[in-house]
């Protein structure tokens, strides 16, 4: 027992000051430990060690027990027996149970937590060569899905806590906006949250169609440097999130930045440099294979390829191009090696009353495409802490500033450029000018494919500035009663440019040069006064928190398009254009809440937690603005019961917990309850025009989510093995949706409450184990798994609603519906399907008339289960981290993308695409090739909406491997360096999957799957 915790207590000649005790706190390797909390047990009498690890505490009781706690160490208790100087040695923490977690308006530990919270430490993030902090959460948090929309630098990462809660706001849009959790950085809601900040399309935001990238965009979260993050906490259940009221209905992500640490100033420098290449992609046909496919297509159509424009047999790729030429266009357009450079430096230190941290970082990620494209980011992070000598007054200030510039192409067609036929002629001449004509064939999309080098000249850039600052003032009014207030400010300003110069267009058609200029500015301010009362009465600890939130958010968007530049050199200016079109949008959102939380801990065994909220939102009409919400939760630490201890001695920790709560939801646009008209961009006949914006409905109000959760947490072998299992269920009703209407009403939708109930439920499992724990060698392992389920439970009058062909009761909201694929018709070679009656047909019927017709459920749209497995090995000075991420799921395979460029036409196809039907009676997996846009095209369009393009997309990915070596302390002392670590890390090294396509996670064929990155670095602390 004493192996873990021990104290060296020195008896020194006793002086008269028996009631005041001083001491030193040191680490196991004999370094002074500043910032350790020293408390007299059972009393509200606390101090912290100074920069030399020393403390002085005036004791209240004669016989006192001192408790030493710090973030990174095992707690230690020492009984005061009259000694004047106490020497305490703290051992590093060996399990996560008592690690400090950030919770709503406070901190807690896993041991005493009622709610469902997972912490990902900054260290975990830093092991991965990532730029976006959210990408580092992938696979680490049960109940959290993280999907990188693309491997393009700066692309967004979508996150969702425990499934989709709300209906598709606009059913005419095939894809529902994802319910993303509230993101709070150091107590302030991040101004841009996790929405896409771009207005224009680019490689990161190609959109739907063949790119199949429905949620892609530029991520605002790139404004935060992972190196400045201390921890990210993911709050999931009612107990953890209810206090955030309406804002927390979809879960909460708390990001806490690094703070100054007590002690002498240390300088930390971290430099790493890496390279990335495209992840797994399918090989494309070479010229020989391509020509064979094309000729077969013409043979099938009974045509001979010729060079006669507008003739059905016109095939310049077979008759006018040099068919001996071969270029691997995929290699040409997506085959470059990207370079990643990352440099971070920070200074931190402080005295007992003042601590500071200043940090700066620079990051550059280049593209794998040709062109001078890169994402550059510079960040500055500051944090200051001050408390008065008597510790009554405290001040905490944090500010994080980020500047990011991302250059790329504004034409997403670049992503599909490798459909270019492999015998396509050279793209540019020696001077770098585009070639628009080859051997009498226009290379502009009219008779052959457009010269894709044009897209490289259509430049795009976005510059983002983010600032997130919070000033928190605290004053201890009396013992036990503290007043605090947060004054937060967060802003995100994005400036965008997209140019289509004359040089990128075929001069034969007197083209117009055009450019777009956009601004997208977000701002949030927040005032949050709180009062906290903490007391202990006998065995009960009370913690009462009341507070008030005043929050204001604005978003101003504007875009100007300049058309008709006479000279490409002016294309970056608005005024150089012949005419301009401007538009702007503005929205204001205000939120007010009164909240309270009561937490009672009795005998360290029983915990009860209650929260209540009175929320007001500006998104609702008069008299509908306020709602009351709340939660109740409890936990029982049953291993503390004597009976359990006796009967189950191997159990070192056991907790049962549960929570239930109702949380409001005001998701949706602002001003929706007003009948609005917007001015036209230009006047009509000298009269400014007003255009109606919405159907008038002032009657909608709060949607509400009811969350229920039970969990059991167990620890064995002195907490070397920790297991937790959680069951959750959330039901969102009275849904706020843009209820779709036929356009005969004048609009496609109206904003209203819908009597529909959506349920998300599931199981979450986490297993931590210290498998090997030796002085020289250790192996820690952590495994998590989530089994989610999503269901539409009820929808009043669904059959007669505009969602009658979108949702089915009992099915997930994310369910993909399509035709039931029945293979290729051996008689004529076209795809065939089963109709609603189970009969074979080549012409299945799309949903219409309030019925799904021949559509059936094809894929549920979320994994059966998913999770991650983290392993950490330490041998002496070496450390190896291996992180695996996995998901069991079905998804759209490559056929769903490639059949949108009909095989047989002038597009290159993957080599895998063969075994097409050739003659009657043949059983073939793919339909007959055709050189014409006839039946083969409509058949292909049915095919890509069928079960034929969905297949297994399960995978196990070696997400991160990080290997590092820390110089031994002896050597460090010689070179006068506190710490020096050399490391190499790899991201997305390989993936085990049976998926047919490029990447099972993104499931995008014409796009950039997550990159494979290897980077080396050195981290030094002076």
């Amino acid at each position: 027992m004493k192996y873990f915790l021990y104290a060296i207590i020195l008896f020194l000649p006793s002086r008269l000051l028996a009631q005041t005790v001083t001491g030193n706190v040191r680490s196991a390797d004999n370094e002074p430990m500043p910032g350790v909390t020293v408390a007299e047990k059972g009393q509200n009498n606390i101090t912290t060690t100074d920069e030399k690890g020393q403390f002085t505490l005036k004791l209240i009781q004669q016989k006192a027990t001192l408790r030493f706690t710090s973030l990174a160490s095992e707690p230690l208790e020492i009984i005061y027996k009259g000694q004047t100087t106490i020497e305490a040695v703290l051992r590093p923490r060996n399990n996560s149970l008592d690690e400090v977690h950030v919770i709503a308006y406070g901190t807690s530990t896993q041991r005493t937590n009622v709610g469902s919270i997972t912490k990902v430490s900054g260290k975990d993030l830093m092991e991965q060569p990532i730029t976006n902090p959210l990408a580092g959460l992938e696979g680490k948090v049960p109940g959290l899905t993280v999907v990188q929309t693309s491997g393009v630098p700066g692309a967004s990462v979508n996150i969702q806590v425990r499934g989709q809660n709300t209906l598709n706001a606009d059913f005419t849009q095939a894809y529902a906006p994802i319910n993303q959790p509230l993101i709070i950085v150091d107590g302030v809601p991040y101004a841009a949250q996790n929405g896409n900040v771009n207005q224009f399309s680019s490689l990161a935001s190609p959109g739907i169609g063949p790119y199949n990238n429905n949620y892609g965009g530029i991520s605002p979260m790139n404004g935060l440097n992972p190196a400045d993050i201390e921890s990210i906490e993911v709050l999931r259940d009612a107990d953890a999130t209810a206090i955030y009221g309406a804002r927390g209905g979809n879960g909460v992500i708390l990001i806490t930045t690094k703070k100054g640490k007590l002690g002498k100033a240390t300088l930390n420098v971290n430099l790493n440099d890496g390279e990335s290449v495209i992840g797994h992609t399918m090989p494309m046909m070479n010229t020989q294979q391509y020509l064979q496919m094309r000729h077969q297509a013409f043979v099938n159509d009974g045509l001979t390829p010729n060079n006669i424009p507008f003739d059905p047999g016109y095939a310049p790729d077979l008759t006018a191009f040099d068919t001996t030429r071969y270029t691997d266009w995929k290699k040409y357009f997506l085959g470059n090696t990207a370079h990643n450079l990352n440099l971070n430096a920070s200074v931190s230190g402080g005295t007992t009353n003042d601590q500071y941290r200043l940090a700066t970082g620079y990051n550059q990620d280049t593209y794998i495409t040709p062109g001078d494209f890169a994402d550059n980011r510079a960040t500055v992070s500051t944090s200051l802490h001050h408390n008065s000598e008597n510790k009554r007054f405290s001040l905490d200030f944090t500010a994080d500033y980020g500047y990011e510039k991302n250059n790329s192409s504004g034409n997403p067609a670049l992503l599909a450029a490798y459909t270019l036929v492999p015998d396509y002629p050279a793209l540019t001449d020696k001077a770098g000018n585009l070639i628009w004509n080859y051997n009498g064939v226009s290379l502009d999309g009219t008779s052959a494919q457009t010269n894709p080098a044009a897209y490289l000249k259509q430049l795009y850039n976005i510059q983002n500035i983010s600032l997130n600052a919070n000033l928190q003032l605290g004053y201890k009014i009396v013992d036990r009663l503290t007043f605090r207030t947060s004054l937060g400010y967060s802003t995100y300003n994005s400036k965008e440019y997209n140019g289509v110069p004359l040089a990128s267009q075929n001069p034969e058609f007197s083209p117009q040069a055009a450019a777009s200029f956009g601004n997208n500015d977000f701002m949030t301010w927040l005032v949050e006064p709180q009062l906290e009362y903490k007391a202990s009465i006998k065995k009960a600890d009370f913690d009462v928190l009341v507070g008030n939130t005043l929050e204001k958010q604005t978003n101003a968007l504007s875009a100007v398009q300049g058309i008709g530049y006479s000279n490409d050199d002016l294309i970056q200016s608005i005024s150089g254009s012949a005419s301009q079109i401007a538009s702007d949008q503005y929205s204001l959102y205000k939120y007010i809440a009164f909240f309270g939380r009561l937490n009672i801990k009795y005998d360290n065994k029983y915990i009860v937690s209650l929260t209540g909220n009175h929320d007001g939102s500006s998104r609702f009409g008069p008299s509908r603005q306020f709602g009351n919400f709340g939660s109740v939760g409890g936990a029982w630490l049953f291993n503390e019961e004597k009976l359990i201890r006796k009967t189950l001695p191997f159990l070192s920790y056991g907790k049962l917990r549960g929570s239930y709560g109702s949380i409001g939801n005001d998701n949706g646009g602002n001003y929706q309850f007003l009948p609005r008209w917007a001015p036209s961009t230009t006047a009509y006949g000298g009269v400014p025009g007003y255009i109606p914006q919405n159907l008038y409905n002032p009657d909608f109000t709060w949607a509400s989510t009811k969350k229920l959760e039970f969990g059991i947490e167990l620890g064995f072998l002195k907490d070397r093995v920790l297991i937790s299992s959680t069951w959750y269920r959330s039901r969102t009703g009275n849904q706020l949706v843009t209820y779709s209407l036929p356009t005969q009403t004048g609009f496609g939708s109206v904003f209203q409450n819908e009597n529909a109930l959506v349920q998300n439920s599931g199981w979450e499992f986490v297993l931590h184990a210290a498998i090997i724990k030796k002085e020289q060698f250790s192996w820690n392992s952590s495994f998590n798994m989530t089994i989610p389920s999503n269901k539409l439970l009820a929808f009043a009058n669904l059959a007669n609603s505009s969602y009658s062909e979108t949702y089915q009761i009992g099915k997930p909201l994310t369910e993909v519906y399509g035709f039931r694929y029945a293979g290729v018709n051996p008689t004529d070679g076209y795809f065939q399907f089963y109709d609603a009656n189970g009969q074979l047909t080549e012409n299945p019927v799309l949903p219409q008339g309030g019925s799904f017709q021949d559509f059936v459920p094809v894929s549920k749209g979320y994994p059966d289960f998913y999770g991650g497995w983290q392993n950490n090995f330490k041998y002496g000075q070496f450390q190896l981290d291996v992180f695996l991420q996995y998901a069991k799921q079905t998804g759209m395979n490559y056929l769903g993308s490639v059949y949108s460029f009909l095989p047989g036409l002038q597009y290159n196809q993957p080599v895998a695409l063969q075994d097409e039907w050739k003659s009657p009676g043949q059983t073939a997996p793919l339909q007959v090739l055709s050189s014409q846009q006839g039946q083969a095209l409509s058949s292909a369009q049915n095919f890509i909406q069928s079960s034929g393009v969905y297949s297994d997309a399960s995978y196990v990915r070696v997400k991160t491997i990080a290997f590092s070596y820390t110089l031994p302390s002896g050597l460090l002392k010689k070179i006068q360096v506190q710490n020096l670590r050399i490391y190499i890390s790899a991201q997305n090294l390989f993936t085990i999957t049976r998926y047919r396509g490029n990447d099972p996670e993104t499931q995008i064929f014409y796009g950039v799957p997550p990159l494979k990155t290897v980077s080396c670095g050195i981290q030094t602390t002076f």
Partner: protein
Amino acid sequence: MKRNLIPIICIATLIMVASCKKFVDVGLPKNQLISSEVFADSTNANSALAGIYYSAISTYLGLNAGGLPLYSGLSADELTPTGSSTEPVQFYSNNILSNNNSNAVFWGGAYSSIYSANAIIQGVTASTGISAHAKLQLIGEARFVRAYEYFCLLNLYGGVPLVLSTDYKTTALMPRATIEQVYTQIVDDLQFAETNLGSNTGTNDRPNSLVASALLAKVYLYLAKNDLAATEATKVITSGNYSLEADPNNVFLSGSAETIWQLDLPYNHFTWIGQILVPTSTRAVPKYVINPVLLNSFETGDLRASSWINVNVARGNTFSYPYKYKSNVLASSTTEGYVLLRLADIYLVRAEAEVALGKLEDGANDINLIRARALLPGVEVSDAAQLLMAVQNERRHEMFCEEGNRWFDLKRWNLANAALGSVKTGWKPEAQLYPIPVNQISANPNLTQNPGY
């Protein structure tokens, strides 16, 4: 100390609760107006009307912004696509899929205009800040617009839901009205507009009483109410406000004396129809060429064949394309707008009505006015059947690629099957009606699809 604190907290809380109602009131949006402001006075209400036209012209190839002449021209025997772009080919091959986006733009655009018109009618009626006289004027114009949109919808889709209110609760599940019901409403709206709109607004970019008469003349002709059609046409012709331009090249210019109603474009802009039809290079292959059937049917010497059709030679081939609208790039000033109603059309409306009424001589005179401008000899007054063929022939050559005239005419003359069956492979009689966009069928279970889709 604790005792002092409690009242302070209570008071502070009370102040906050009192002010919180106010805190969450965000007022009106900065860059938008609400209905009560729009209908506060006639100036603002007039802007709501201008908004309808603005929306119409800013929709790329929307119903009233070049889309109707282009796509109906492809459906009829007027235009042939040179490219293989899927959506236009669907119109050309008379096989429009119900998810065709251009078709959805027609439907949505028309109902969007109708919503605005209905909102204006409701808002102006309820307004207390607009004079009774101004109300009639504003409502008259809104009702005219509504009638024009229904006229287009009816001729493209058959009977459509007759939406006359902005209340989505009553309009969302509305089924189709019959063709007769829609026409009755159109006539009613146009009669109201004719009575209440001023006779001359000085410009031709906003409807006046005579614009209403012109459309009413066409509507009566479509309804085979030939005497009423002739009467309405005569009102327009004898008003003295309009005259035929001598040079066909001037007909579609902004200042044309022949224009009865046009949609104006913003400063230095071009029409979408000009942009899509007129190639930007003389060596380029136009996206659409005149269907050979139409090209070969022009009489020798027809000035319209040389003024309104232009030729590009590319790769050794000759491509003829419509050249009524000539502007296709941004210019220093606006030269053209979308001409929706013009005098030549109304002359031919009257001619057709007169022939049907047996007034052959009057009919021939009207036809010959149009032929004379094209430098063609006059037609002889022969029997009614021949003269009817003459007027049909004249409409075909005068009104080609203009606001759906050919497509609508072929259908109302019951000639679509005869004229198109021979030139369009795969023609089927059901193709006379476009499909209701599939997402509308989904959104409104009471909406039935047209046969054949």
